[in-house]
């Protein structure tokens, strides 16, 4: 009988739970299988059943403390349809306020990810002491960069506060509209740079950070381009002209070569398009395109996928960056670490969009809510920071929710993340005997996961020393533990 060994990378030491990685090795220390387990069961699809429809945008945002705005707005878009409205028919003030809130959300979430989670790995190096590989270490090594990161995130949070009422778990998006506008005082808060950096300053900083990243990329392009290459399909919403649109649009999916697998499809058709594979070792499903089946129909979402999918970015600075990015990486990039570069371009895009909205007098209007005829079903899509997010509700005439289906961004990336862990681990174990380079194993598996979604990496809730543990099991018995 062939003996196998199991390595468990288990960061689940915090309240929120999150992920765990298992590597199954054979006698020759080759990786036979890698699994990213999502061991946390949230149950929100059941929580909202029997609740009145107008509670959905408030309840479901509790899914996440990092991107509650995305769930709040996606649910609001779906519930708009239950009250007979749509993105096109809600009042212009509501549409603008929601977009402003969303761009603030993406800006702050991307800033959190890059400056607090990813930059310490990238700029300080995977071989640096884990005790210093965090935002504190970054502040020591590059205080100017850390300061800008902190202030950009704070700016995004303040945009959320001004539009949602609170920095976290705001409640302003309501069925058919929004319950507040942006006052002139609130607008000026973001323009004059007295209490927070001005939006012009934020745009300049996003631009500067991109230049810094490009310098880093030039110096490390070989590692970035070869660390992890995953040719896969890319999915995102796009606007009517094929432009990047993080808030609303049609579904486009491109194959690894750019062939259109979904050609700007109305997202209300998603149930006919999507299938979901279930595995008994994780609560996270594996969405795929029915036409291609599983696993071939799996796709990636998020910043890198969005840059692959869109034809252009409709703001000047971000478009210029997109062109340079494509000149360096090709029209369709599959280097997973390019998620970071893509994220920075999206930060710049969001900042430019925020500026446009701050100067839009529509947002000081008073017509906030509109309602039409009841409909029994509502579907909302948007591009959350980590990718395409889907909320789908069925509502009885009594107003009570009878069914809810949520497909979150990270779910779309499930197969890609599992594949990422397997590829990185396979390479490491091929190069060196088991656990000879323990820190490299811990680091590189983390880096691979982190490129996708900090909500599932242990880094999300522990920027300092990672609560990582690897158990090596032989014939069901723990023979060695690696931890830090």
């Amino acid at each position, binding site marked *: 009988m062939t003996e196998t060994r199991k390595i468990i990378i288990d960061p689940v030491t*915090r309240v929120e739970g999150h992920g765990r990685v298992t590597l199954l090795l054979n006698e020759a220390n080759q990786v036979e299988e890698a699994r990213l387990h999502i061991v946390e069961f949230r149950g929100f699809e059941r929580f909202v059943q029997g609740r009145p429809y107008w509670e959905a945008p408030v309840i479901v945002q509790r899914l996440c403390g990092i991107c509650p705005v995305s769930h709040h707005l996606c649910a609001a878009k779906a519930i708009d349809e239950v009250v007979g409205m749509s993105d096109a028919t809600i009042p212009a003030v509501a549409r603008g306020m929601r977009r402003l809130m969303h761009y603030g959300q993406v800006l702050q979430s991307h800033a959190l990810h890059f400056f607090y989670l990813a930059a310490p790995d990238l700029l300080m190096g995977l071989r640096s002491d884990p*005790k210093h590989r*965090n935002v504190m270490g970054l*502040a020591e090594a590059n205080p100017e960069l*850390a300061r800008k990161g*902190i202030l950009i995130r*704070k700016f995004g949070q303040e945009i959320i506060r001004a539009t949602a009422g609170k920095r976290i778990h705001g409640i302003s998006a309501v069925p058919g509209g929004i319950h507040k506008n942006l006052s002139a005082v609130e607008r000026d808060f973001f323009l004059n740079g007295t209490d927070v950096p001005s939006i012009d300053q934020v745009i300049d900083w996003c631009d500067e950070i991109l230049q810094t990243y490009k310098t880093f990329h030039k110096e490390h392009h070989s590692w970035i381009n070869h660390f992890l290459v995953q040719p896969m399909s890319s999915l995102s919403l796009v606007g009517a002209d094929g432009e990047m649109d993080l808030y609303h649009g049609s579904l486009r999916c491109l194959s690894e070569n750019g062939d259109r697998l979904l050609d700007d499809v109305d997202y209300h058709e998603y149930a006919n398009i999507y299938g979901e594979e279930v595995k008994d070792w994780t609560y996270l499903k594996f969405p795929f395109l029915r036409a291609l089946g599983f696993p071939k129909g799996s796709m990636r979402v998020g910043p890198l996928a969005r840059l692959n999918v869109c034809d252009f970015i409709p703001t000047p600075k971000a478009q210029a960056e997109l062109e340079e990015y494509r000149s360096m990486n090709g029209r369709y990039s599959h280097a997973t670490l390019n998620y970071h570069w893509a994220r920075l371009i999206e930060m710049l895009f969001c900042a430019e969009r925020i500026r446009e909205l701050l100067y839009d007098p529509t947002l000081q209007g008073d017509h906030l809510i509109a309602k039409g005829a009841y409909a029994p079903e509502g579907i909302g899509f948007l591009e959350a920071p980590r990718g395409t997010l889907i909320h789908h509700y069925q509502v009885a005439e009594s107003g009570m929710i009878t069914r809810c289906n949520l497909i979150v961004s990270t779910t779309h990336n499930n197969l890609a993340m599992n594949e990422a862990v397997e590829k990185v681990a396979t390479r490491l174990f091929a190069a060196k005997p088991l656990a000879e380079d323990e820190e490299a194993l811990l680091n590189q598996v983390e880096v691979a996961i982190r490129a996708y979604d900090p909500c599932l990496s242990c880094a999300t809730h522990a920027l*300092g020393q990672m609560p990582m543990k690897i158990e090596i099991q032989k014939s069901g018995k723990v023979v060695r533990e690696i931890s830090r």
Partner: protein
Amino acid sequence: MKSVAKVLFHGIGNPLRGDDGLGLRFIEAMLAQSQSPVAVADFSTVDFHWSQQLTVEDSALWIEYDKVIVVDAWIANSESSTLDQLEYFYGSSEQALKNYFGEAKSEFGSHSVSPWDLEALCQKCFERKPEIFFLLLKSESFEMEEGLSILAERSLNSACESIHLKDFQGSLESTMLPK
């Protein structure tokens, strides 16, 4: 003329977890005092802020002040002998704080940061930092419930009655106030 320190009271804790809401309750009490028509102190250089936890972005807030007083609930531990004699603790004595916090260590995440790390971030990123003091209010339970225990109410009232704004605005020394 001696300048008056610009002071921030930063209450932390979750009011849905019983006595953990003491930070918020203290801030609410002080805010009520500051808005009272018969306020006996000058609150013009004092601000109040509450959050469930300290976060990295609070560094950009803290640098605006000369002194930051972190107001938090503390569950009495029979092994921390000195602090157990008090209904509340105010000061910055490192040894005394260790009795409450344990060793000051770098342990933080995207949702929370220790006061020491926040202080260090202020210095490293913004090249200025406030003096950090702690007002720790004695409590007994952080279970999922609203409202304070009798012990926590007593601690809150005692702190509100005994602490005068001038204690925070003046030249502050590390102080331990007996019950």
